[in-house]
């Protein structure tokens, strides 16, 4: 299977391990990721807030680039990129005047005929659990995992059209398929503070603190994420959270693709698992997984 | 004296005061739990001997309540009760019952808060008086 691949800025920056593991997992599943040539940033939250047209135009620009690849599907591992692409395509379809304005801005046509996937959705819906299950070589037996979806992949459902925003289960299914022990919790799609990491770190600590504490209380070995913002916010703030609690949190925050890669039998260092702030390898080793 | 909890018998007319007492319940108008209600058709039905009997049997107070004058379900039974009460009071004082231990009241069906208030005031007053101790005379014997 060949699909367009839109990694987004982070995946070539701080979330390198996400990119590495994604590519690895897809390769294992015989999916050929064809990176959208000269893709640009989706504008993310700042563009969305500051200028609606610009925000839509940036996504449309990327869609136009992707359309030229002549593939029917595009996959974006970054949930926000995914949402922006999907939202732009949908808004233009609904509002011809907007589409016209956007096309004038990007100076090219957008057909709007791509199927846009987030990675999680792509794997569960397009690839299927059966195909994933068949590839498991090293089940994650004994690993207690907290599935954390974050906001962007499921909310708002009118845009994402994916899973249940209040209680999503796709990640659970994948982790279970990979042989992990999935813990239930109520914060699957609660916010981590997202783009406030830099400007309002205290807000991020407040939001992630709740997540980390509950995950620790439930006895998780790791929090599994699908978003690089979630990963960063959860991974980097555990010391501050521990300071208020007079506790030391060492809860690894891992991309689901990294775990899937492990289960597929890949070596941890090939997946980027050694690049996280809170070291996941100790736990994985203890469980005999790394 | 503070531990004393009086026991009071209340004869309530079926049409007004008993309804008021029921409505006081529905409206949750709190009352001290010292009053024991006996339903009668009309305040005019309350024979003076009932009142005397109550005191003789250990009541510390007795109240009779009926409809307002002019509102009696039986035209004027309450007026008859009123007339009778003057004589009854005299009789009671002969028996050593303080005047304050007996009360006649007009409480309409609509006056449930008033009923609760009346009960509470009467209980307080009788509590103040202390227990009724019948004199060991022939008067007490006469009605037993």
């Amino acid at each position, binding site marked *: 299977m060949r699909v367009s691949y839109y990694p987004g800025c982070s995946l070539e920056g701080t979330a390198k391990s996400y990119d590495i593991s994604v590519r690895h997992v897809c390769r294992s599943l015989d999916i050929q990721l064809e990176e959208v040539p*000269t893709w640009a940033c989706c504008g993310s939250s700042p563009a969305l807030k500051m200028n609606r047209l610009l925000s839509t135009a940036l996504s449309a620009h990327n869609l136009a680039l992707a359309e030229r690849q002549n593939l029917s599907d595009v996959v974006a591992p970054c949930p926000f990129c995914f949402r922006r692409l999907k939202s732009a395509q949908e808004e233009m379809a609904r509002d011809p005047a907007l589409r016209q304005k956007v096309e004038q801005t990007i100076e090219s046509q957008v057909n709007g005929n791509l199927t846009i996937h987030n990675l999680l959705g792509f794997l569960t819906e397009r690839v299927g659990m059966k195909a994933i299950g068949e590839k498991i070589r090293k089940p994650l037996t004994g690993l207690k995992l907290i599935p954390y979806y974050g906001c962007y992949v499921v909310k708002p459902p009118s845009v994402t059209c994916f899973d249940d925003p209040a209680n999503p289960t796709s990640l659970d299914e994948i982790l279970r398929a990979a042989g992990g022990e999935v813990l239930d919790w109520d914060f699957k799609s609660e916010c981590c503070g997202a783009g406030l990491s830099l400007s309002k770190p205290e807000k991020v600590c407040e939001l992630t603190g709740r997540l980390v504490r509950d995950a620790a209380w439930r006895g998780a070995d790791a929090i599994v994420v699908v978003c690089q913002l979630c990963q960063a916010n959860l991974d980097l703030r555990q010391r501050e959270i521990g300071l208020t609690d007079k506790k030391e949190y060492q809860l690894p925050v891992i991309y689901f693709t990294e775990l899937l890669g492990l289960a597929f039998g890949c070596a941890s260092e090939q997946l980027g698992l050694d690049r996280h702030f809170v070291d996941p390898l100790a736990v994985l080793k203890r469980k005999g997984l790394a | 004296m503070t531990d004393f909890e009086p026991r009071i018998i209340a004869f309530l007319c079926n049409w007004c005061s008993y309804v008021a007492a029921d409505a006081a319940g529905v409206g949750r108008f709190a009352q001290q739990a010292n009053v024991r209600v006996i339903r009668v058709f009309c305040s005019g039905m309350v024979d003076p001997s009932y009142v005397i009997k109550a005191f003789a049997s250990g009541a510390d107070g007795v109240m009779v309540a009926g409809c307002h004058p002019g509102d009696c379900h039986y035209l004027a039974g309450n007026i008859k009760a009123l007339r009778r009460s003057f004589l009854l009071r005299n009789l009671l004082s002969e028996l050593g019952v303080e005047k304050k231990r007996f009360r006649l009241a007009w409480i309409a069906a609509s006056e449930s808060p008033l009923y609760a208030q009346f009960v509470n005031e009467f209980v307080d007053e009788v509590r103040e008086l202390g227990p009724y101790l019948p004199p060991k005379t022939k008067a007490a014997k006469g009605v037993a």
Partner: protein
Amino acid sequence: MFRLTGALSEQEFLHHVVQRSGQNLLECLQCGKCTGGCPIASEKVSGPRRLIAEILSGMRNEALKNPTWWYCVSCGTCMTRCPVDINMYQVATALCELAQEGGIAPSERDIHLFEELFLKSVEKYGRVKELRTVAAYNVITKNPLKDMDKAVTLMRKGAFSPLEILSGWAKDRKVSRIFALARRTSEGGHE
């Protein structure tokens, strides 16, 4: 004292927000389910319900200075749960644009700064240069050593290379042009 006289102009602000956002705020029930679930709402940040109340009441200044839409991380929780399907991003965008047009200074300078730097990076290179943006932000906010310990750890682990900051990146002229065209259309394009 906020006084209403029934003048048509009192409804103007509401109309602008409704028009730009495409969201019929008159439908808002003021139920507060949005603010109840809003991750950024706090004692200091009112959250969407109150923000809409201000817009509905014609309280232009209060709404445009309300930090809520600055804080908004577009998590989408509010609109996921909204009983009348109000899309708060659109409202936030409309307010941001109206504030810019009205020359109202951003109530949250640090957020604004980060977002500016972010977009600057995108405008120039077509993509956001994370480390460079962070470093610029820390320098401008006079806190250059912020989170340095973490950066060092991550660098050591190979999560990223410090060279990224220094290395010259190719400019994306196409994206710069999109920025320019979008700005031009936005400025002149609104009714």
